């Protein structure tokens, strides 16, 4: 076979003076970069390196260094190195280039153009350490008005409210299926969700039986492939989420490569082991908005109206009108997954060239629903590339009730963003089913890291709110007046519904 023409993307340097020849790197690398050359030392195959930094972090004497290869060819501003590589790879393999995680291109990041407010004089800031600060939120449908029975002074609720789910922090773990990530990682997310009083999402791969103790904190997903969807699964979830699309790959189906479909995953999904798990691009029982309504009510009927139904879409150009249709079709929660949303596997160009930033999507959907007078009936969840509590709060000001975290949660578990999730070789033991790798994430250790991260975020949220003199999250939702923009043209300000920094209240 002729040699590949592609230069290595990363350079791996070993300080032979420090190296103990302990072979930790050989064992740690999921991609086979380091090999024990039987007495002749440890050899390095740089072409296999994805720069996940596992060997660097795990080397007991710090003998390894991985850096980007500076000399790829004569790349330039118009022909970046990444594009050159992709063309060479396609010329060699004839396949559409796959990738993992979210869009990494240099599009404008609206988060980074938005600034939050604080109180000075006319309104006191509040000290979150010593005064009550409420960040609890609820997801689900709200009736248009409360129905009250009983005489004045002894009023009581006449009709029970539709089912809702309570979140102690306005954050949930986004759908990541057992299959795309390991069982240990799913367990870490589930345990953390339980400890934090929030929700995790099974993704579309069905439910592993080990999740039974966490069902009070579980969202079950129904995607076009309907993997693992049966009565027990629907019953187990607190929320049922219909996945129409995903920010990383709007409009195309899911594809779990056969490499990751082991016996247990095959059993959970009801497909042959080693087969690609294919989710069709559309739900074939949804070719129109009234069909979505039909699936929503099928799920409500099947669970006797005891569970909120969420509908998750990728943010696309017409997102506001689509979201309005989803609300009118009977969904209780609308999930918008933006351009930066992650994935276990997506064609790279689809990931990088389709969609809408979640900041814009949230703003225009919230506005459209308000214009139609239906915003108050439903919950809005924003998703896709939320990096911090500041991003989260900005989305809540733009109209979200809560957010989903995917990438940030995996980072907390050790992910170094190498974007090779689709290979199933994840050295950090996250996006893999190889038992020698998956054991690197102990569920309890992982859960603690997630709890730590979100405890910190929760405190930051309270500090932000206290600074603004607001002590309940309800008073934050859609509160665009707490935001100002820097460096955006007027039409972008209009879409976001945010004023230019410097403009007064």
């Amino acid at each position, binding site marked *: 076979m002729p040699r590949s023409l592609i230069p290595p993307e990363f350079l791996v340097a070993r300080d032979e003076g420090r190296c103990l020849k302990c072979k930790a790197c050989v064992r740690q690398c999921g991609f086979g970069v380091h090999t024990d050359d039987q007495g002749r030392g440890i050899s390095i195959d740089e072409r296999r390196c994805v720069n996940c930094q596992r060997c660097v972090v795990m080397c007991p004497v710090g003998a390894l260094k991985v850096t980007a290869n500076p000399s790829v060819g004569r790349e330039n501003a118009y022909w970046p190195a990444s594009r050159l590589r992709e063309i060479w790879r396609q010329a060699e393999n004839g396949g559409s280039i796959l990738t993992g995680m979210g869009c990494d291109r240099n599009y404008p990041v609206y988060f980074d153009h938005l600034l939050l407010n604080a109180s000075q004089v006319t309104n006191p800031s*509040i000290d979150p350490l010593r005064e009550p600060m409420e960040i609890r939120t609820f997801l689900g449908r709200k009736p248009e008005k*409360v129905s009250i029975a009983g005489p004045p002074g002894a009023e009581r609720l006449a009709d029970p409210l539709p089912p809702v789910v309570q979140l102690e922090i306005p954050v949930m773990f986004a759908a990541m299926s057992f299959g795309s990530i390991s069982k240990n990682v799913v367990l870490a997310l589930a345990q953390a969700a339980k400890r934090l009083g929030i929700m995790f999402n099974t993704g579309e791969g069905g439910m592993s039986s080990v999740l039974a103790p966490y069902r009070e904190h579980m969202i079950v997903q129904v995607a076009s492939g309907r993997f693992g969807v049966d009565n027990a699964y629907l019953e187990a979830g607190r929320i049922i989420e219909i996945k129409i699309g995903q920010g990383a790959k709007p409009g195309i189906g899911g594809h779990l490569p056969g490499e990751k479909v082991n016996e247990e995953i095959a059993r959970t999904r009801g497909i042959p082991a080693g087969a690609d798990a294919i989710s069709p691009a559309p739900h074939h029982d949804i070719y129109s908005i009234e069909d979505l309504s039909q699936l929503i009510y099928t799920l409500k009927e099947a669970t006797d109206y005891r569970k909120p139904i969420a509908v998750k879409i990728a943010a696309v150009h017409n997102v506001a009108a689509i979201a309005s249709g989803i609300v009118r079709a009977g969904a209780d929660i609308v999930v918008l997954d933006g351009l930066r949303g992650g994935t276990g596997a997506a064609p790279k160009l689809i990931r990088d060239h389709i969609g809408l930033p979640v900041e814009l999507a949230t703003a225009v959907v919230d506005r459209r629903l*308000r214009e139609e*007078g239906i915003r108050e009936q439903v919950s809005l969840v924003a998703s896709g590339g939320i990096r911090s509590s500041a991003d989260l709060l900005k989305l809540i000001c733009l109209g979200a009730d809560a957010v989903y975290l995917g990438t940030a949660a995996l980072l907390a578990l050790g992910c170094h963003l190498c974007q090779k999730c689709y290979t199933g070789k994840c050295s950090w033991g996250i996006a893999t089913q190889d038992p020698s790798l998956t054991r690197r994430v102990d569920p309890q250790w992982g859960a603690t890291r997630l709890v730590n991260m979100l405890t910190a975020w929760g405190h930051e949220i309270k500090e932000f709110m206290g600074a603004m003199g607001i002590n309940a999250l*309800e*008073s934050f939702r859609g509160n665009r007046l707490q935001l100002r923009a820097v460096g955006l043209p007027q039409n972008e300000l209009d879409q976001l519904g945010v004023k230019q920094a410097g403009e007064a209240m």
Partner: protein
Amino acid sequence: MSERKEDYHQSYEGKIRIPSGCAVAGLINKAGKRVNGRTIGEMMAVMHERSNGLGAGYAAYGIYPEYGKAYAFHLILTDDQTRGEVERILVRNFKIIEQQEIPVRRTGRYKKAPLLWRYFCEPLRPDRESAIEDLLLTTTMRINRMAPRASVMSCGQNLGVFKGVGYPEEIAEFYRIDQYLGYSWLGHGRFPTNTPGWWGGAHPFSLGETAVVHNGELSSYGTNKSVLENFGYELSLRTDTEVMAYAIHYLRRQNLSWPLVAKVLAPPHWAELERMAGPERELVAALRRIYGGLMMNGPFSIIVAFHGGLMALNDRLKLRSLVAGASGADLYLASEEAAIRQVCPRVEEVWSLPAGEALICRAEEESACHVA
């Protein structure tokens, strides 16, 4: 007229929402006895230091018994031409039975005051009484869309709001509030920050049967606004208190009793809620879930007037002062105790309102106050 218009635009200073400090006062006679406006004026005058001369106003209930069921639209207008436009909006749904300029003393700085006009109207279709609140809402929104050229001060039965730019004493004098008798009154003196106030931005804010005066700033304004926009409310007066008036109007249209309205505006903390007994907890939790976006966040003390009663409420952290005083059939409310002692030296009981707990006072002979 053109001179007045120019002045008007200057004072409006663009489209700016103005945070404000303030003084509030209210009084009601529980027996429905009507009191002269001079009393509320005196209460406000004592609290002069809390205002800065950029806005003051009064609401009076029970002042127009001779007009029976007619709705009294009090308007702030730039000129007669604008009045014509407003009138065309009114006659779409109302029959005007009487109209006149509100009697004022145009002296000193008020020589250039805007045109202040009142219409007494009856709905064209009185059979649709249930829809009257919607009608008042849409008509007010239509007129306020013309702001700053035109805005509605009040539009309820047997009540009126008198407000403008100035100190409370000046506005009382200008509108000659000593010429009116009402069984309940609200007063307000404003301390808008940074920029001059404008006539339509003074308190009280009123829609339908309710009027509200407010001390504080609503950090939740943006959220409250975005919620109310779902239901046909347009925020065009650029003062946070406008949102309070509309929130109350909306919640009353949802048939919530006054104690429950208060539970929405200043809900118990979740931790408190968990300590409540079953049915109450269920109801209050439901209110917070459904109407959470109408919670008022930030420091506030408010006095709300409605037919036959007053409600006073502090924010749930008690960040503003609000004092009540009772003497016989009279109940007084004010930002400062001194305001009460000024008009009722022998007040029997004075107390400070706790955080988030509404004081609701109803006239015993409500029928006497109410336009039946």
